[in-house]
Each structure stands twice: as C-alpha cells, then as structure tokens.
C-alpha cells in the first residue's frame, strides 16, 4: 500500500472527510473499470461506483492494511456489482438477445471493435444467473486466476472451479437452445 493511502485512511478515520474525498479521486476510475463489467449504462455505472465508496467508507474501520487498499476496494466492488445483478434479476426479466451472434462469430477478431466485443459478451453473460455470470466475469473479463477469483468473490477455489464448469455448461445450453451451433464440445 502506498504511504499516502495509509495517511489518508487514518485521516479519514480521525474525522477528516476531505481525506476520503482524495482517496475517492485517486481510485474512482479504477473502480469504474471494474463496475463497467457489471453494467453498460453510464448512469448506473456512476451509482455503482458511488455505492462502492459509500460501502468502503462504512467499513473502513475493518480495513486492517494487510493487503493493498486497491485490492480491498476491488473486493467491495465485486460484492456491490454482484448485489446489483441479483437485485436487477429480481426486478427485470432479461430476454435472450443473441441476434448479433452470427455476425459476430463470422467476423475476424481484428475487425471487431473492443467495445462491440464487450457489449456482446455482456449481453451473452446476462443470460446467466448472477453466480455464473460473476465467476465467468472474474475468470475471463478480469482475467483472474482461480485463486484470485476465489479471493475476490470470497468463495473457495474448488467452488470457483465447480461454478465455472457449471456456468460454461449453462452457457453452452443457452447457445444451443438459441440455435447457435458454433459451440461444439
């Protein structure tokens, strides 16, 4: 952890609110990158980033300083994002939106814009329940190892492996059901 983080955290705990504002300024874009995996909506993104920093402030006393502050924030961000997916799933019934599938698999990687690929992947993973979606997001989009995904999600490593296996199977079934035959295992 950078020394400045320690100083700012101690100042925040001592009642200096502007110290926390400086921490937010330092980490908000990194957290925004994490939360961009959970929503593609700009307004929701800002709300999620804000929720992460509010949650972090509320539990700042429990931060022991053994891991970098950024790691601690990322764990909170994962929790907030997962909670957001669970809440949304209860209120909205997302329809299967795989109309871009054929066009996408036919194109070369070089032609596909990164934001297009991200949008497509987001809509593809949105077909899955939050737990499956989270494990695939951590392993593929965040490119974390099983151990890192376990640490981020709070699950055991074997749980991550089992969940990832189930999630891939469910995704395969969804694609096959939609007539997307490019998947063969």
């Amino acid at each position, binding site marked *: 952890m950078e020394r400045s983080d320690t100083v700012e955290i101690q100042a925040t705990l001592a009642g200096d609110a502007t110290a926390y504002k400086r921490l937010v300024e330092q980490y*908000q874009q990194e957290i925004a990158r994490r939360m961009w995996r959970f929503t593609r909506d700009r307004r929701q993104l800002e709300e999620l980033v804000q929720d992460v920093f509010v949650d972090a402030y509320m539990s700042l006393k429990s931060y022991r300083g053994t891991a970098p502050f950024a790691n601690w924030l990322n764990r909170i961000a994962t929790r907030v994002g997962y909670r957001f997916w669970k809440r949304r799933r209860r209120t909205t019934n997302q329809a299967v939106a795989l109309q871009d599938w054929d066009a996408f698999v036919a194109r070369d990687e070089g032609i596909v814009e990164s934001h297009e690929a991200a949008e497509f992947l987001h809509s593809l993973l949105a077909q899955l329940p939050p737990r499956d979606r989270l494990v695939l997001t951590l392993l593929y989009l965040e490119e974390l190892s099983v151990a890192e995904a376990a640490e981020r999600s709070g699950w055991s490593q074997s749980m991550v492996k089992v969940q990832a296996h189930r999630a891939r199977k469910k995704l395969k079934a969804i694609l096959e059901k939609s007539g997307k035959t490019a998947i063969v295992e």
Partner: protein
Amino acid sequence: MNTDELLTKLAQAARGDAPPLVDVAGGILEAIGETRRPSNVLLWAFTAASTAAAAMVALAALFQAPPAPTDAFSEIMRIVAPVI
C-alpha cells in the same frame, strides 16, 4: 469452438474497452450522509416507541384497580387446598 475458447476470444477482443470517465468524488460526502440518515431515523423511532411503551406500562400500573377483597372462607380454602 467450445465455450472456453469463445469466452477467451470475446474477452481478448474486449480488452481495450474502457468505461466513460466518472466523477463521484464531489458528491461522495453527501451520499455517505444520506446513507447514515436512515439509521439515525430508525434509532430515534426505536427510542420514541420504547419511551411510549414504558409510559403506558407505568400509567396502567398507576390506574390499576386494587385487588378484590376476599371473604374468610376463600382465604381458608386457599391455605388448606394444597394439603387436602
């Protein structure tokens, strides 16, 4: 292509995707204040409800009717009933 390869391919293609710039620092202190407020409201509501309940119990005790007088036969029966 299996699901693992598909997800890897998509994730690689999406690697350069970046979120729009966000700035929540300006409103973070207000957001924290908003989050804290409901807990204070709950605390006050709980305190008020507890005080009201205690006052009602005290009033009920104050205005409770005195016990009904008992006759001599009932009093004797109350004492000897466990024995017989």
